């Protein structure tokens, strides 16, 4: 009964989405106020129904209803309760329903949190989001029904959830990622609505900015969690593989980063308008493309769910409609909204333009590397794979090129600045960065040029920000007031840029200084790695809720001092018999120690063992978290609230310059 209810709710939800696409849009076109006012109601109805549908699916999982094919294939009575809930979206069908649900929640959020928008604009936004929901809900219903029953022949026991996904990180990673993906639909809908209305001004940018920043922040967190999960769960100690599935989330992030910077220019200076619109279309299209790549099974990946091509064709057609339709609209309307404001080449505008070009080129090179194997295969040129060396070779220089300008950005002035002022402002930060670059790598012992370069770039960013902060606070009468006077969006920028600096140092330090060793060890033996002595004490069998494991115990000692006990496991899951490595990690701000078990070798109790010493690996994730925090900070900016008052009071909100 419950699955039927869920299925039914999903169908009515689709009907609501169709109504949301058509009725308010018709109202906006004909000037029919009554039809327009239906928008928020339809958005809420659609959301409630899809939520109901998702809850029904979750209940089916909790109740071990193996008559539902999805539950039978992805769950098991032995599975702990949290992972049963995780299993709801740990598969293709369920994750598409989650995608739809999150999209609906974003739509509802727009309906609820933007009463200050002019009605006609708001309903256009809701209509566009409704049409995206139509695409996803019908995709789910027609090609991947999560409620399909296994009747007759209900299995007594389900097969298990893929053990790789039985991990706390997997409970929040997909939702965060989807919140980010689907969140770009808001920026997209705002852009389409603005094109439809022919109104593209600072007010439009100010409306879509907080939404875009929040979506971007969620996407950052989602990507970060994915990388962290790969690090501790896959057992090979890597944190980024340039796998097509990772790229699928990274491309919208790159385009989104360009978008949030370009939106800043559009809001503050009324420039780059048509460019910003184009970026909003790109960012969302790349989210859809990412979904296509992951869901269609066209790529070889360590974590793509293998799927039938029918779904791929559906998403491809959907993608073609969205991209083709919005680009056509763009071609028709963009000339009308282009801006004619001048700026000097020595100005913040041109630095942000550079940012945009770099991020867009980075997106395109990643896109090219990801699609190259597909293209070659489609053209009959053979089955190629493009690996990490390609991506590192193109991506790293691009980012390195970006950072010097990024250090100038916050200090620079809008419209017109001078190089002599830049020199004067930046001499001190540059000197400080050089001193750090010369001295800090010495702490680790051997001097490494790449690490020095990373410290130089990161230091350049950090000291540049410090200088700018000092300038801004110093002009106030006292320190406290100076700090309080700075807007939340400024603090957001500072935190996010600091996060980027932390990422640079983390990535370079860990890739340069990491020591990894695959060894054959037997209990009682000791191996030394980067000054740490790893003693293999013993192996003992242990039993988990749905697995049995061999658990090893390692004692780590450094210079006679006890450091950590590590207990990596080799698990065998009872339901499917799959073997899983559970790495043991002693985390630290400056180094991680990492032990993973291979397999037993020979007859003397020896094991293949993987030992890692990973310095500063946490700085990357910390940096990503800081970037996300920065993104969230900007929403607290008073500017985005005072606009509501000024608009409702009938004041010319569009002229409010913040």
């Amino acid at each position, binding site marked *: 009964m419950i699955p039927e209810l869920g299925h039914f709710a999903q169908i009515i939800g689709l009907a609501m989405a169709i109504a949301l696409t058509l009725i308010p849009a018709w109202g906006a076109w004909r000037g029919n106020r009554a039809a327009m006012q239906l928008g928020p109601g339809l958005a809420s109805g659609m959301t409630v129904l899809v939520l109901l549908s998702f809850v029904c699916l979750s209940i089916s999982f909790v109740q071990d209803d193996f008559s539902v094919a999805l539950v039978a294939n992805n769950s098991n009575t032995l599975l702990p309760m949290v992972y049963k809930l995780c299993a709801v979206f740990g598969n293709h069908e369920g994750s598409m329903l989650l995608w739809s649900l999150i999209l609906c929640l974003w739509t509802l959020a727009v309906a609820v949190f933007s009463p200050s928008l002019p009605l006609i604009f708001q309903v256009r936004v809701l209509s566009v989001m409704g049409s995206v929901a139509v695409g996803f809900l019908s995709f789910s219903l027609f090609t991947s029904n999560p409620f399909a029953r296994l009747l007759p022949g209900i299995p007594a026991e389900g*097969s298990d959830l*893929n*053990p*790789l996904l039985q991990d706390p990180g997997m409970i929040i990673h997909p939702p965060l990622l989807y919140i980010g993906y689907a969140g770009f639909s808001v920026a997209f809908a705002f852009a389409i609505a603005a094109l439809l209305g022919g109104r593209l001004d600072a007010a439009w940018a100010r409306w879509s900015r907080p939404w875009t920043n929040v979506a971007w922040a969620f996407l950052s967190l989602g990507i970060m969690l994915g990388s962290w999960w790969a690090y501790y769960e896959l*057992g090979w100690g890597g944190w980024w593989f340039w796998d097509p599935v990772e790229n699928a989330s990274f491309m919208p992030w790159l385009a989104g980063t360009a978008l949030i910077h370009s939106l800043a220019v559009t809001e503050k200076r009324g420039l780059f308008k048509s460019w910003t619109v184009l970026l909003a279309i790109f960012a969302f299209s790349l989210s859809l493309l990412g979904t296509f790549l992951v869901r269609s*099974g*066209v790529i*070889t990946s*360590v*974590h793509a*769910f*293998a799927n039938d091509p029918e779904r791929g064709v559906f998403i491809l057609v959907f993608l073609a409609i969205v991209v083709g339709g919005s680009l056509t609209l763009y071609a028709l309307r963009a000339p009308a909204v282009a801006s*004619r404001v*001048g700026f000097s*080449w020595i100005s913040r505008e041109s630095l942000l*333009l550079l940012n945009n*070009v770099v991020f867009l*080129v980075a997106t*395109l*090179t990643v896109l*090219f*590397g990801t699609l*190259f194997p597909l293209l070659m295969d489609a053209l009959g040129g*053979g*089955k*190629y*794979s*493009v*690996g990490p*060396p*390609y*991506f590192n*070779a*193109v991506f790293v*220089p*691009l980012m390195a090129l970006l950072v010097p300008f990024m250090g100038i950005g916050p200090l620079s002035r809008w419209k017109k600045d001078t190089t002599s002022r830049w020199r004067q402002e930046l001499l001190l930060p540059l000197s400080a960065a050089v001193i750090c670059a010369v001295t800090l790598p010495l702490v680790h012992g051997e001097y490494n040029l790449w690490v020095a370069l990373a410290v130089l770039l990161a230091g350049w960013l950090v000291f540049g920000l410090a200088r700018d902060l000092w300038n801004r606070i110093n002009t106030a009468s006292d320190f406290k007031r100076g700090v309080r006077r700075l807007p939340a969006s400024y603090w957001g920028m500072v935190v996010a840029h600091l996060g980027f600096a932390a990422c640079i140092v983390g990535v370079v330090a860990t890739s340069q200084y990491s020591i990894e060793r*695959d*060894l*054959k060890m037997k209990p009682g033996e000791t191996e030394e790695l980067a000054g740490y002595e790893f003693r293999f004490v013993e192996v003992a069998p242990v039993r988990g809720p749905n697995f049995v494991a061999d658990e090893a115990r390692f004692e780590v000692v450094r210079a006679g001092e006890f450091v950590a006990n590590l207990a990596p496991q080799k698990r065998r899951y009872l339901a*499917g*018999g*799959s*073997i*899983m*490595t559970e790495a043991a990690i002693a985390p630290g701000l400056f180094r991680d120690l990492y032990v*993973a078990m*291979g*397999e037993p*070798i*020979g007859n003397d109790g020896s094991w*293949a063992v*993987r030992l890692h010493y990973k310095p500063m690996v946490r700085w990357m994730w910390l940096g990503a978290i800081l970037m996300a925090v920065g993104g969230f900070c900007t929403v607290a900016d008073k500017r985005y609230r005072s606009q509501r008052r000024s608009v409702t009071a009938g004041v010319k909100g569009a002229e409010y310059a913040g």
Partner: protein
Amino acid sequence: MHPVRKQRLILVLFIVLFSSAAIGLVAYALRGNINLFFPPAEVAAGKAPIGQPIRIGGMVKEGSVRRSDDSLEVYFVITDFSAEVPVTYEGILPDLFGEGQGAVASGKLAANGVLSATEVLAKHDENYMPPEVADALEKSGYDHEGVKQ
């Protein structure tokens, strides 16, 4: 020249310069860093280059996996049931690697026909088969379970 046009010209020049640099990087990076997939049948037919990074994939032949006693070296045979390629690898194999399972090995082919692998990928759950392996097996007339069709 009109200042707006001049600005546009500079912008265009800037984009052209920048994208040529990017294309240069891409071309350079592509040269040594992509590798082509070969089913064992094509390796046996001599179509695979010697000493270039390539990938081969198929089933790990039953009874072919041999581990060295004093190191992490491992030897196995990848087959698509019409031809076989011997592979050597030193290191830890993925969890789901096993005899009679699909696997992809990337590395360089030596003149004696042995692939020395730098990386071995296996499927990551019971239901998954790398598409290229499935394709290779299909070409030699077997399904992904290794059953003759």
